[in-house]
């Protein structure tokens, strides 16, 4: 079903997003049940599971498979950023049941709303970075949002590992300066 995926294909991402979200939610719930509330979720594991659920491994070419991970990372960024934006909007006082969010924060044990601002800022900075280098923003999506290794990222984006390493380092430095100057 994903054999026609082409990295950068906005339509593909559009179609993939709800599926990824739906699967993520199901899998996250399952993972959490397996682990108990205190432990953290394994992002890469989730993406791999989503992948296995969504595509038949034999029905997809090696490059199609790689593209899936790039797209899933992209979807992950969108899901998390949108969530952070929604959370922040709520906090900024539309007056909507902030209680529900506090309860979740408490359950998770971390002050989420603090990170919500950061995740939104990061999303904006990453959009700015993509204008300088689309490839570098992709690298960040794979490494940061999907927790993929250098090798996995190289495979997903079709670039060499040294390029991934360098892009990741320089992108982090640039993003860090953007976030701190904001």
């Amino acid at each position, binding site marked *: 079903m994903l054999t026609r995926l082409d990295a950068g294909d906005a339509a593909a991402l559009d179609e*993939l997003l709800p599926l990824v979200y739906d699967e993520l939610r199901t899998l996250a719930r399952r993972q959490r049940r397996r682990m108990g509330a205190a432990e953290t979720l394994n992002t890469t594991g989730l993406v791999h599971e989503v992948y296995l659920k969504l595509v038949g491994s034999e029905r997809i070419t090696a490059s199609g498979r790689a593209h899936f991970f790039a797209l899933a990372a992209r979807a992950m960024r969108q899901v*998390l950023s949108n969530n952070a934006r929604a959370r922040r909007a709520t906090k900024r006082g539309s007056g909507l049941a902030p209680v529900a969010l506090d309860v*979740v924060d408490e359950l*998770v044990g971390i002050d989420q709303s603090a990170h919500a601002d950061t995740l939104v800022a990061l999303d904006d900075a990453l959009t700015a970075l993509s204008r300088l280098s*689309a*490839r*570098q923003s992709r690298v960040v999506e794979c490494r940061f949002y999907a927790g993929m290794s250098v090798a996995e990222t190289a495979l997903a984006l079709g670039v060499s590992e040294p390029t991934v390493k360098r892009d990741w380092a320089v992108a982090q430095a640039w993003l*860090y300066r953007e976030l701190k100057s904001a």
Partner: protein
Amino acid sequence: MPDTGGDDRWERISTLYGEAEALAPSERQRFLDGACAGDPGLRAEVDALLGVSGVAAGYFGTLAAEAIPPALAALEEGAGPGHIGRTYGAYHVVAEIGRGGMGVVYRAEDTRLGRSAALKFLPHFLVTDPRARDRLVREARAASRLDDPNICTIFGVEDTADGDMFIAMAYYAGETLAQRLTRGPILLTEALDIALRIAKGLAAAHRSGLTHRDLTPRNVMLTARREVKILDFGLAEAAGHHADIGAGTPAYMSPEQVRGEPVAPPSDVWSLGVTFYELFTGRKPFDRPDINATIEAVVHAEARPLREIAPKVPEAVERLVLRMLRKHPAERPADAGEVVAELEPIIERRRVRKLRLVTTAAALFATAAIAYAFLRPPVAPPRSVPGARVVLLPLSTDTSSSSSRYLALGLHEAISAQLSRFPGVALISWTSALPGENTPAMRRRLARALSAVAVIEGDVPESELVTLRLHDARDDHLIWTRELDLSRGVFPEIGRSIALEIAAALGIRPPPRSPEVLRPGTFATDPRTGHVYEAVAATLNWYDAEEAAAAREHKGIRGHLATITSAEENDFIQRSLPVATEGRYWIGGYRSVRGGTTVEGWHWVTNEPFAFHNWANGGPNDYFGEDGVQFWGDSAKWNDIDRVAGFEPFVGGFLVEYDGTSE
């Protein structure tokens, strides 16, 4: 992968950064001095980046570890302000009724118009996503273009003051086709009707140039008013729109959709075909345990002919469905309109034939009965039944009430199962339609044709107060009548007591207490026991549909074997069944009265009796109550049977009831 964007200067900075970082700090200065000669701005930028490289890596490492897992966890909780209890415009949100990847559906009261509505919101995390908002509007637009009684009515799309967005649509009380299918098979006539309505709704979409793209039983609503409504045009696209990828439900997706190729009405026809298949057979043609195998099956496997699974399906329907499931879109009906055009005449033909059958049934049956009794040479001599011929007519029902119909069927079976055991009675259990209205003249005619001495008939109205009547065949004179309150269902005991009363009224002696000899191994196909399965299932359908479905899911349970009426018979069953079934498992429940106390229990008929309470965590009497049928289909207990016994597969089983009357 092609680099789709970039900035030459930034690329240069990145390259220098990478080269410099690879060097020892002492060599970096000299390298950059040379590389950035004449461009102090470039040098400054690279220096600034190198200056934060260590701290930046640490920062993002920490951020990823701290922010992402909780954000995922929040997703998992579906965090977001709840809509329940809030009012948006005229809509007061009452309860959540469904949730999927792209939306949460609530039931709301429209305070202005005083009706219920269903509101479909975006999930909270997507509220700010323009693409998701587009999609919601697209869905509303697609569905509202279609004005068809078989498609869910859209009221409108509205924004809330908080930036949320929802589609308001008609709320239908009822269940989805998927839910209905889990409750058990659908009668053929009803299935054909549902199939036609879905096809008509889909045809309306196709006429408007829309492809649904996600037609599944989950998206078909069967309303309490017996309407059919196609839901969820969230994935619908104008035909010829861009190629679509990866959306849908694999077990219902067409091969071209699975491959990510452009999708047109023939793809919907495929999904409709899969839905029909399930509607008529209760099985999904391409469902496999995992998604890879499912996709593989969709692309390569041929669907098993429907009639192998459900022999009653008309041949023409089988042909149509299999054609809808051709791998090549061009070989399928071009759109749902063509399906309607083929299905309608099939249904019409069937209706006409049924009418004709009803009117000729009497003649046919009489001829057959006479031929059997008198004309056939005694090659395999019919087991001569020396008893008095008694006809048990189908009980009149309130045809619009399924509970009345089921109750009538159950009672009919309960009486015939018991009465046929009386050696003095040759029971003719009439189950097909009557040759005419149930009048004295008709009863006399029928009795004459069948050489019967008496006719039993009765009424099962909706109210559950049942009347049974026994007539003398010669003059239709009323010999016996009885009113029964069946508000608690039909149990074998009722059949037995009615049979005893009727026999007494006819002056026929009840069967002796000695055990009826059941030959293990043959009773599964014995018409005397096999048919009881239908009766019990029907009774349970009325009694509790869920219980019936749960029982049926256990394929091995073929039905009610017999009501054992003596200790000897009970011993016989327990001794002989394990031998006869050789490793197949059988289950028996019994109820016996010893010294005035009712004792109920279960035996595995595997030489290993065990007490009922061992697996039910309760006293036996908590459980059976008075009605032997009730426990028969209780899902929790059937599941417990598997669990406690720890055996698989559950090959076969019958309920054996022991009424212990001879103790």
